[in-house]
């Protein structure tokens, strides 16, 4: 176990370097300059040149290395700038110049994480319960209904669900605020909207797992011991049936927490997903790199966490 954790943590910088290089190459290929407006009056060419020089935008190689030094913490370790800045310094946002990327990440990531986490919790509760109900009585009417719901959950686009929720929960009933952020009630609608596709997928995983495990030999043994059906399901079937859910949970949580573009846009949530897309469209290089690096680190750590959890839940995995 310890070896696994150590190996993964040692791999992390290499993974990040690869991600950094690839993202940088792609982002650099976007035409135009982040400092330039798509349309409207352009500043004099001298001004554009001066700005490009200031942010190293005139030379890919310089940008690559100087940004790598600052974002990886090497600059900080070497004591440049007297260590007044953050350890991992992602620089100023090129398009929102009054803000640094670190500040933006610090402000937006918790928002995305809060919405994402609550969506995952909701999805787990919804998905696992409907999955069990369907899996225990496969082929019955109840199973069909839950399966139908999960298909609906996966297939309705988030912006439709979001807008309907806003209309119903915000405008018509006035129960929840329309968009924005700041209180618990701001979180309810987006969390529900975001959870639906995850819930649907978890429901299907659970259902399949339950059906499979119910036919296993140990279930017959457990039943023949005279155990209650409830005990059989909760004690013996579920822990095994839910293993696929746990392995899905890692990437799902990472995906939900790093922000959903559509959900954040529809609910006017100041999360990361939307601004990442905007950063790409506007070629905000520092912002793109900062967000991608944080995402990548988060994803690696989430997967590690899931592996650890997995070993804890399933003794068979521990020796591996």
């Amino acid at each position, binding site marked *: 176990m310890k070896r696994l954790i150590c190996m993964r943590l040692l791999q992390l910088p290499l993974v990040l370097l690869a991600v950094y290089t690839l993202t940088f190459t792609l982002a650099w290929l976007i*035409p*135009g300059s982040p400092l330039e*407006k*798509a*349309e*409207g*009056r*352009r*500043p*004099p*060419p*001298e*001004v*554009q040149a*001066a*700005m490009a020089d*200031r942010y190293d935008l005139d030379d890919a190689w310089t940008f690559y290395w100087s940004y790598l030094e600052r974002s990886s913490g090497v600059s900080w370790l070497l004591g440049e700038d007297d260590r007044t800045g953050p350890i991992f310094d992602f620089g*100023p946002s090129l398009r*929102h*110049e*009054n*803000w*640094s990327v670190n*500040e*933006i990440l610090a*402000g*937006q990531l*918790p*928002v995305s*994480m*809060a919405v994402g*986490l*609550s969506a*995952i*919790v909701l999805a*787990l509760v919804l998905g696992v319960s409907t999955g069990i109900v369907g899996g225990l009585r496969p082929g019955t009417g109840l199973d069909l209904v839950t399966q139908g719901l999960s298909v609906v959950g996966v297939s309705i686009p988030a912006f439709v669900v979001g807008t309907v929720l806003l*209309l119903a929960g*915000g*405008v018509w009933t*006035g129960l929840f*605020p*329309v*968009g*924005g*952020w700041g*209180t618990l009630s701001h979180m309810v609608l987006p969390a529900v909207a975001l959870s639906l596709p995850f819930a649907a997928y978890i429901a299907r995983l659970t259902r399949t797992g339950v059906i499979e495990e119910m036919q296993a030999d140990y279930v017959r043994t457990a039943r023949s011991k005279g155990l209650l059906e409830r005990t059989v399901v*909760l*004690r013996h079937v579920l*822990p095994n049936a*839910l293993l696929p859910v746990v392995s899905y949970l890692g990437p799902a949580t990472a995906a939900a927490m790093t922000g959903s573009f559509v959900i954040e*846009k*529809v*609910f*006017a949530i*100041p999360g990361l997903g*939307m*601004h990442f897309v905007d950063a790409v*469209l506007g070629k905000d290089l520092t912002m793109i790199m900062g967000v991608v690096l944080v995402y990548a680190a988060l994803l690696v750590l989430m997967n590690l966490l899931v592996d650890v*959890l997995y070993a804890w*839940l399933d003794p068979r995995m521990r020796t591996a």
Partner: protein
Amino acid sequence: MLRFIVVLLILLLALVALRQLDDPSPPAEFVFASENEVFTLDPQRMSWLADMRLGYALFEGLTAWNTDDFSMRPALAESWSSSPDGLVWTFTLHNDARWSNGDPVTAHDLIWSWQRLLLPDTAADYSNLLFPIRGARDFWKWRTESLEALPEGDTEAAVALADSIDTTFTDMVGLEAVDDHTLRIELAHRVPWLLDQLAFAPMLPVHRPSVEGWPEAIDTSDGWHTVPLPGWSQRRFIGVDADSGRIEQDPRWARPGTLTGNGPYTLTHWRYRRDIRLEANPLYHAANDDMPASVLVRSFSDPNTALLAFESGEVDWLTGVSADCRTDLLAQQAAGERTTVHARRAFATDYFLFNCRETLPDGRVNPFGDRRVRQAFALATDKQDIVDHVTRLGEPVTGAFTPHDSIDGYTPPQGLGFDVERARGLLDEAGWADRDGDGLREDSSGNAFPTVDILYTTSSARFRRIAAALRDQWRRHLGVNAQLIGQDSKFFGADRRNGNFMVARGRWYGDWGDPTTFLEMCYSTNGNNDAGLSSDAIDTGLDIAATQSDPAARMLHLARTEQVLMEHEVPILPICQVVEVTMYDPARFGGMTEHPRLVQYLHEIRLLGRVE
């Protein structure tokens, strides 16, 4: 099972922990929603309308507009006078004008702010606004050239050069603080719209100690110009870059806590892409009790959500409604079912640009290099049909680039109307005729008219629809094939700037109250001349206008120049004046401007239903 519950509990706890990081926005008297993000609150760096709206709330310039007719009125300056030749202007500042930290606002503040605007180091979009001031161009040149001449890495020389900026500026440029409250401006040539330009956001004064981040210990209560400048290392937001010698400014001064303004409001809250909160500035010299005491700017990037927020009463004013259903909203307003939807003509024109170069970057011959072809395509465009059936906001169609009824004393030309016969004749004349009877045009050697690429941005369905209408009309009226090329804004911008297009869409907003704010785009050497037009008639026309002293004669001359531009040269196919849809309840809020310039001073908004 217990383990699963533990996992679930951990997730829940993490959730609760994250919730602690957040705090709700306090309520405000007036809440408005902006679909356009605020990019910066540093006046000299502003170029977006949404930024400028807040700029006018946080800072006050020498002059301001009367927002009903956009005539000029005193603001920071209580009065002014000019010499008979119009070259020397003297402004008297309000005695009791104060920065929000209590420092007096002096003529030195204006001079330093404009020096900052002009300085190449600031990289301001609008630095050339100051070029008409005597010596300003020379100062720009001096700074640029001395930076280039600087030996790389010589920190001492760089600092010495930076230290000499203030005195060089005073010596070179025709700006003088006669005393603390008297500012004299000497112009190199007449600028008929000077007073208008002085009200424009990039010209707003900023507070030097705040912008540079001076130590708090320095007492600037008699004005920063009365104390010695602190050393570079003591200034928190500014420094000299050893490599380039440039002054590097940290734009983060323009945030709550450090931003010091002289406007009707102060900045109390700014959370990135979430909300901005302003509160009435008690030190503002013209403070009044009628304006909203607090203003909240909420950010919505989805137009439909912004609309829903307005419908639910959470937002009092939607600055620009871009949701697709806005045509229906306008219809409901017209039918009397609503009172909150307002269509406003803006100081902007939606247009398509013809590439006037003879060849395209890939070597293909560009048929639009021939002005007869450009004229023909403009004449074959039924704009009324586009406005009635495609855009449906009741926009006034136009043949001119400068919007009608927007500039006092200026009547834009008629331009080219819809005349299919003439259009066909012009194409025939240019050598493009249907020679084989297939309904499509060929040149004399039988080569078909190239497929016309119509470039547009995919950011809004509006532009795709207009482009599609043009394609159909040109096919029907001229017998020419066209194809739509939708692009993301960065790719579009690059192609348009590099002349890699035949026809490209555009929208141009005027900045100051003079036709040159539109027409200068077509000057051959202008940096925004994406059409690649190079016309002596236009260049000399604009040059002559710059020297004319009689305002009425100048306007007539400009109108004639625009007529040549729009009827003869035709680099631009104007479609319509832009109409912006805005929403507020006129029974609850007054003081909203209806003038096309669309500058809304927040402190002029009146809360009508307020209980005293």
